[in-house]
């Protein structure tokens, strides 16, 4: 049986989510899951049009600075403080097809590890010129990019001295509501990754590795910003042609 899927074949349902690759709902080392993890098994009853369709965002929703976290909250015209980086990558589906025209939203702490939020309690200083949010829509080849500063690590209330590794939160839509995904991106070479209870909710080291952006010197902006590459994979769809062939056997 050929493994080739041709364009236009992908009218089937989404591949089943590999729940052993994702973190389980209840992960006691990440204490916030204790009362928020459903105890009943998730019900897998198959997908309908409600899961196979989803919201579409036009490039018109984007403002000029939406993808530039160094400038998009600037209050006095100066840049956000911190190590200047470009974060870019390609959004693909499980069939390795680019996902074009999909909304990618990010949020992060500032260079000192401080979020701009009323419930944030860390002593690190706010940066008056850093808001911490950005968004982009992937191009025809599925690529997105942001300009930002590298976020700092920070302590958080879980154990008595737990620290989050530097990370950027990502929200991705895809074309179907059943593809909806939120995750976090980490930075290559950061030893804090392997000490974090939230990273540790993922059981498979290879799955964690998929969340680590690679330093990409070829795409640095000379004398300006380092580049990190973070590719994202959304659920793909089965080939109905393949299924039909099987039914004929």
């Amino acid at each position, binding site marked *: 049986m050929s493994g080739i899927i041709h364009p236009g074949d992908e009218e089937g349902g989404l591949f089943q989510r590999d729940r052993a690759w994702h973190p389980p709902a209840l992960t006691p080392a990440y204490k916030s899951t204790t009362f928020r993890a459903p105890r009943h098994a998730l019900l897998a009853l198959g997908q309908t049009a409600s899961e196979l369709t989803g919201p579409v965002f036009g490039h018109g929703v984007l403002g000029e600075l939406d993808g530039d976290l160094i400038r998009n909250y600037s209050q006095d015209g100066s840049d956000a403080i911190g190590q200047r980086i470009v974060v870019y990558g390609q959004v693909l589906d499980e069939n390795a097809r680019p996902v074009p025209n999909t909304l990618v939203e990010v949020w992060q702490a500032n260079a000192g590890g401080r*979020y701009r939020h009323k419930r944030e309690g860390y002593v690190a200083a706010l940066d008056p010129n850093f*808001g911490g949010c950005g968004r982009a829509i992937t191009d025809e080849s599925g690529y997105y990019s942001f300009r930002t500063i590298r976020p700092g690590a920070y302590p958080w209330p879980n154990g008595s001295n737990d620290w989050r590794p530097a990370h950027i939160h990502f929200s991705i839509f895809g074309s179907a509501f059943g593809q909806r995904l939120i995750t976090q991106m980490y930075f290559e070479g950061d030893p804090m990754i392997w000490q974090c209870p939230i990273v540790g909710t993922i059981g498979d080291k290879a799955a964690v590795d998929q969340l680590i952006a690679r330093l990409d010197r070829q795409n640095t902006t000379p004398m300006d910003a380092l580049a990190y590459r973070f590719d994202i994979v959304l659920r793909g769809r089965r080939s109905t042609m393949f299924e039909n062939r099987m039914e004929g056997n």
Partner: protein
Amino acid sequence: MLHRTPPLRETPSQTAGPYVQIGLAPNTADIGGVYPEDLGRSALWPDAPGERIEISGRLFDGDGAPVFDAMIELWQANAEGVYGTQSPGGPAGWGRQSVTDAGAFSFSTIKPGRVKGPDGRPMAPHVSLWIVARGINIGLQTRIYFDDEADANATDWVLSRIPNPARRQTLIARRQTGGLPGYVLDIRLQGENETVFFDF
């Protein structure tokens, strides 16, 4: 049935964390001036025909405490049972809210029609929800149905196949009497009357 193994693996999920508002609803989080408005905050089908309704409720954890830092997205068809693509103000049929400090949400929309199910028969009117928050490692998928659609609910392709009939009630919103036409349903992440969540 055989399925070819796809070449790539889905990027693993991580929790949205306590500050999901910063990214998905910055104006609500007092980060003004970056985006003109938070996506998904306006009415879901502003100009479409149909009965105007509010879908509201509260979100609770297994200890009975309100989940005050969640983000809820809603996706639904129009009154004819058709999913939208895009309108000038953004995608029609999609809404997004960060819950209040009391865990409350309230979507202003129209009552959805019946969408054709996989068996060719219409499903009961419903909206799909996706819930993320601190302490939720992967977004939770659920649905809201309507209690004045008893006949349709009884044959719905998803609802009628939930093995324990008592649990189906956790997805059925009650029509409010008086005031705005509206439906109310509380969502419980865990414990007694735990909401049904799906692995779609």
